[in-house]
């Protein structure tokens, strides 16, 4: 069927390396997300797979077939563009039928496929309209429909939700996930939004500056980020980072943050012992910081004395912006918290879920 393989793929624009030694094996039927900040090379990588960009170096395979020099139309892929790229002078039906007409598919077959795709997407009543008569969400569905009718080996989606309003985005995310399950085709999806990546992907490839930093399942990326960038990119609000020093005190290993001291739990001693005396980066997610009055059971508690700077009432939780030793960080706490601006709070850090990174290499130490 249709696995996808990137083998030592580079993309150069003169001196600039947009994609730097990209290696990925995408399994058949997988939903792989390329995620990263603007300019990280994710769209370029997708476009090289589509055949819309030349590959500077390396090989790309669709299935077992090397497709470096194959024209986009012969790669058996379908693409949903960020701007939808619907043909403005054609009706929705004609837009969806265009690719099939070019391939000289019999009319009856075209009709069957278009109607079926329209039904899946709930756009049957729009078939006669032109794109300018549709809303953003409807146009997006037509773009997806145009890809579905091609029954391709691989679906490529380039930030398809960027132009939708927030509410529609959430709704469409779920629809795309359902679509993936229904069609059973390989999906490769590009986005800059880590929420989209986390909610939709079977695996996520996190990229920055043309380099693939980590490729893993969403949960693994969340639990075990490989470096500072991935740790800070995945999860919202972002992970808090502190410059700390690993010291020994009374025979115990202690994370010294200046204004706070956290005991290293026994299960992490082995990994961290070699770094005693060194300067490191401590990472703790806001959701792993708790109000001392409302700490969930089973949390191995460390304490960070701090003062509340700003509170954000979210309804289901409260975001506390705290200051400790001049360093600002965020905690997501139980909504019943009585912490108010100016209060001094002994924030509880869940020592079962912290991350330590090497200061120079920024790699995680496990």
């Amino acid at each position: 069927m249709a696995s996808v393989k990137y083998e030592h793929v580079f993309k150069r624009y003169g001196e600039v390396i947009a994609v730097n030694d990209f290696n990925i094996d995408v399994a058949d039927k997988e939903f792989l997300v390329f995620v990263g900040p603007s300019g990280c090379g994710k769209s370029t990588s997708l476009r090289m797979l589509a055949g819309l960009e030349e590959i500077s170096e390396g090989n790309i395979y669709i299935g077992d077939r090397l497709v470096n020099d194959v024209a986009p139309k012969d790669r058996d892929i379908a693409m949903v563009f960020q701007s939808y790229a619907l043909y403005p002078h054609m009706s929705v039906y004609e837009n969806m039928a265009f690719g099939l007409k070019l391939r000289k598919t019999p009319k009856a077959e075209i009709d069957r496929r278009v109607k079926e795709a329209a039904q899946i997407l709930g756009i049957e009543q729009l078939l006669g309209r032109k794109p300018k008569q549709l809303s953003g969400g409807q146009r997006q569905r037509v773009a997806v429909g145009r890809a579905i009718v091609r029954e391709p080996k691989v679906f490529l989606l380039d930030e398809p939700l960027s132009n939708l309003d927030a509410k529609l985005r959430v709704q469409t995310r779920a629809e795309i996930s359902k679509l993936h399950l229904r069609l059973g085709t390989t999906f490769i999806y590009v986005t800059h939004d880590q929420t989209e990546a986390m909610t939709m992907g079977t695996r996520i490839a996190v990229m920055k500056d043309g380099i693939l930093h980590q490729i893993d399942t969403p949960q693994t990326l969340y639990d075990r980020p490989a470096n500072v960038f991935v740790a800070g990119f995945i999860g919202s609000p972002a992970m808090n980072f502190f410059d700390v020093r690993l010291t020994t005190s009374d025979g115990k290993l202690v994370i010294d943050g200046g204004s706070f001291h956290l005991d290293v739990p026994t299960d992490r001693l082995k990994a961290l012992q070699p770094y005693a005396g060194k300067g490191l980066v401590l990472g703790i997610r806001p959701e792993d910081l708790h109000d001392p009055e409302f700490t969930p059971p089973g949390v191995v508690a460390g304490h960070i004395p701090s003062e509340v700077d700003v509170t954000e009432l979210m309804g289901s939780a409260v975001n506390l912006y705290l200051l400790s030793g001049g360093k600002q960080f965020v905690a997501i706490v139980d909504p019943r918290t009585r912490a108010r601006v100016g209060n001094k709070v002994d924030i509880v850090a869940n020592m079962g879920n912290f991350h330590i990174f090497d200061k120079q290499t920024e790699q995680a130490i496990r």
Partner: protein
Amino acid sequence: MSIKTATMQPGYSQTQPAWVKRWFNPEALTAWLFLLPSLVGFGVFYAVPAIRGLTVSFTNWDMLQAPQFVGLQNYARLIQDPDFWNALKVTSLYVLWNIPIQTVIAILLAVLMDRLTHSSILRGILVLPWLMPNVVVALLWLWLMDPTLGFINVVVKGMGFQTIPFLGSPDLAIPSIALINIWRHMGYTALLIFAGLQTIDRSLYEAGGVDGASEFQMFWGITLPLLRPVLVFVLVTSIIGSFQIFDTVAITTKGGPVSATKVINWLIYEHAFVRFNMGYATAISVVLFLILVVVSFIQMRLMRAGEVD
């Protein structure tokens, strides 16, 4: 009177009818002031002479005696005038030679420029012929096409072929005049179409490529339909312009040989300034105007000019 007092004076708003308030309120008056130079120019050089021409067409004015009202006599005459019908035929022939070839070449040039190079220098060269005065262009080609001394025929004879009579042949005269004007206008038209091409979203071509369209299919199925607004403008203006061909004829063939290039405007010119039949000449002009209105209307309907994709 300041704007404030004008709109706040109770008397003002009660006594003036709505349309006066709409067209002559202080803000509108400022607008009129800005429009005045253009309006005066339009009035003096277009509107007034046009209306005057229309009234003259109902007279028999010969510039010597006072004009006398003759009703539709001039129009009745031109319907029976073989010269008029010949002029119509010759002009239509010219338009049929000129516009299709010019437009096709312009589209091809525009697409080539778009695909190969966006160089400003090239675009500048392309528009050069259009910048030259009509008369200069006509003289240039008059000499190029000369049967004995013209460069074209020197080359043709050198290759062993017969001299091409161009402007001296009744059959080749109109096509030759068309050639001159194609040469003059194709660069400018190409630039207009080139500008239109830039408005087409590039991702449409990428989508087309992924869908499986060849270059030709993309041109026919995506580029041309989306160029429609520009093409409407180009075709309407160039057809209107073509019907009024005069300068080139005046310099090169002067209506000959054997009335082969006696276009409508030449006929008007002859009657007005050679024979001083002002009444008749203006009648022909009015008819030309009406023809152009009808042609433009039909064109714009056919090309659905009012719609936007």
